[in-house]
């Protein structure tokens, strides 16, 4: 890890997995995060779980934002498992969109950091991603230090 990486802008992958293609929300959140100075990797909808893991690895992101307007959040737990299997434990995941309360619990239990509903404020989203990005970075440094005592 280079010495300047701590000052690198937070890198976020904003994407949609599964079957739904409604992307007004994900495009607006991508613009929010970019305006806040983050580096946003934005993909079209319908990414596969494996594809997201690959992209997160290659792009070295700290945070993944999954937009789910319909029911695609139902496969986010599968994605969390795949991220861990790929050694991306430090990457933080947020979900934005319409998630029934009782299904939200399952996402949090699967390791999702936060779920934003419709009407979530820009500041709230930016603050959360900033803080998660920093967490991810610290987690990664700690992992590195533990592995290289």
């Amino acid at each position: 890890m280079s010495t300047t990486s701590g000052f690198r802008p937070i890198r976020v992958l904003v994407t949609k997995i599964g079957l739904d293609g409604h992307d007004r929300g994900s495009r607006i959140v991508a613009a929010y995060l970019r305006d806040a100075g983050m580096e946003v990797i934005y993909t079209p909808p319908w990414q596969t779980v494996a594809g997201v893991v690959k992209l997160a690895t290659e792009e070295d992101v700290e945070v993944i934002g999954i937009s789910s307007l319909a029911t695609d959040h139902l496969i986010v737990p599968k994605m969390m498992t795949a991220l861990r299997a790929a050694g991306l434990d430090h990457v933080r995941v947020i979900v934005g969109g319409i998630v029934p309360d009782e299904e939200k619990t399952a996402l949090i239990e699967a390791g999702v950091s936060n779920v934003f509903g419709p009407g979530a404020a820009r500041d709230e989203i930016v603050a959360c991603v900033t803080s998660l990005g920093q967490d991810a970075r610290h987690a990664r440094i700690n992992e590195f230090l533990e592995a290289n005592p």
Partner: protein
Amino acid sequence: MTHTAIQLPLPGFEQAQGEWRADYSKQMAGEQPVRNRSGIEVQPLYSPRDWSSERYLDDLGFPGQFPYTRGVYPSMHRGRTWTQRQLIGLGTPADYNKRVLRIIDAGANAISLLPCCSGFRGIDCDEVDPELLGTCGTVVNTTDHMDDALAGVPLGKISTAMNDPSPFTLLAFTLGVARRRGVDWSQVTGTSNQSDYISHFIANHQFYRLSLPGSRRMLLDHIEFCRRHVPNWNPVSVVGQHMQQAGATPAETMGFTLSTAIQYAEDCIARGMDIDDVLRRFTFFFDISISFFEEVAKFRAGRRIWARIARDRLGAKDPACWRFKFHGQTSGVDLTQQQPLNNIARVSVQAMAGILSGLQSLHTDAYDEAIACPSEETARVAVATQNILREEARLCDVIDPLGGSYYVERLTDQMEAEIEAVIAKIDAAGGMYKAAEAGLVQTMIGDSALAFQEQVESGDRKIIGVNCYQVDQDLTVPPAERPDPDAMNRHVERFKAFKQERSQEAVARALDALARAANSKDENVFEKVVDATEAGVTHGEIVSSLRRELGFGHPLIVA
């Protein structure tokens, strides 16, 4: 077309108006200009100087008369009220069937079918994460599935709208069912909703399946096939809804939609089709936002512009081709998760705008639409809203009741000018197909979406419960109706067994014919789609084959 108001001799008018203006300014010193969503500055008052009835026959006419500003039929809602067409689709075909029969028992004369999102992606149920199957629509992959979905539904007597993008397998399945039941195809009525591939490429990537040139070919083959074999079917529904939902202003939306219709009509003419035969079956589908007067003006102006385009630009001679018939859906974009019951008030206003604009068919959103697939109870409230507006508020008593309002007529003229400017811009870019291919439309919509969002954030545009009048409440999202996993599993297993048992030889032959047609210049590909479904070829297999032959559909997304 905008005009300078004709100066009528009205003794004392100027003096009275001047006095009012002075009094108004005294009370309203420093007032900022007020603009609608399309950016038109709205005045505090309109008067006979803003619109004059001298232009009545040119610009308005009577209902059922050119240019149809006041309505496309002579008796409008007095003669026949709009069709109440609520969108439904969930779970297995049997689940759908139960719900659709209840709707028909309740008196519906029109139904719709929303297929599972996996269908929109072009994949069959045996290739999908089982968690997602049937959560947003009904899983229909074969003619047998459609037969189950429409069990007991009197095909030929009930109009059926299908959310059926290119290559239109749902219509193919329906025609197969009609043949099994001995219903002549000429009796089959309904609409291929989501046949407007340009709107999908631009703004609703959900439905985009084939390459742009491939989609163009499919739509023309579909139109030609329907004109020959299913004459009472509407093969084209030009969709403004997607663009307005994605953020286009109402004026931009109408401009893009009419430009799209021009593109399809000109493509049909280039194919050698008779424009008078084709255009009568064009229908339109729009979002109705809560910007009440702006929506009314949007639809009135749209009718007028389309009549002139159809007659003068496209050369259609039959008045049936000049009529701008549209389905409206109250806009989910205006609904909020906060204080969800407020959405009933919003939907009422949106529905009023649509009804007073003279729509032909209406879907009212359920108040939980911003947060869930509507439950039966909330769907009932949505239908009741339409009934209340018709029976209690009696909005059907008078045709075009807002016509003649100085404001509405002036705004209709102004919206017309805005819409025509959009059409001119698209024309300058070489037409809608080229403008979409180049990303011009996507960029315009993206800019408008962000500008609107910024107005909401700055508080310039108020949304009750979101940026003003908030109340302290936990934002809850109620449990969603999910299909029974066991029933869905059985459905998938039966599908797998069906694929094993069918004549593989017939399937191979049909797929071969489909590929050959796609690569030929003159064969009708949709005809081969219909043949393939009869041979037991599935939806996913047809889409895969056509993606190979005609190219995969990657929408151009401008973020």
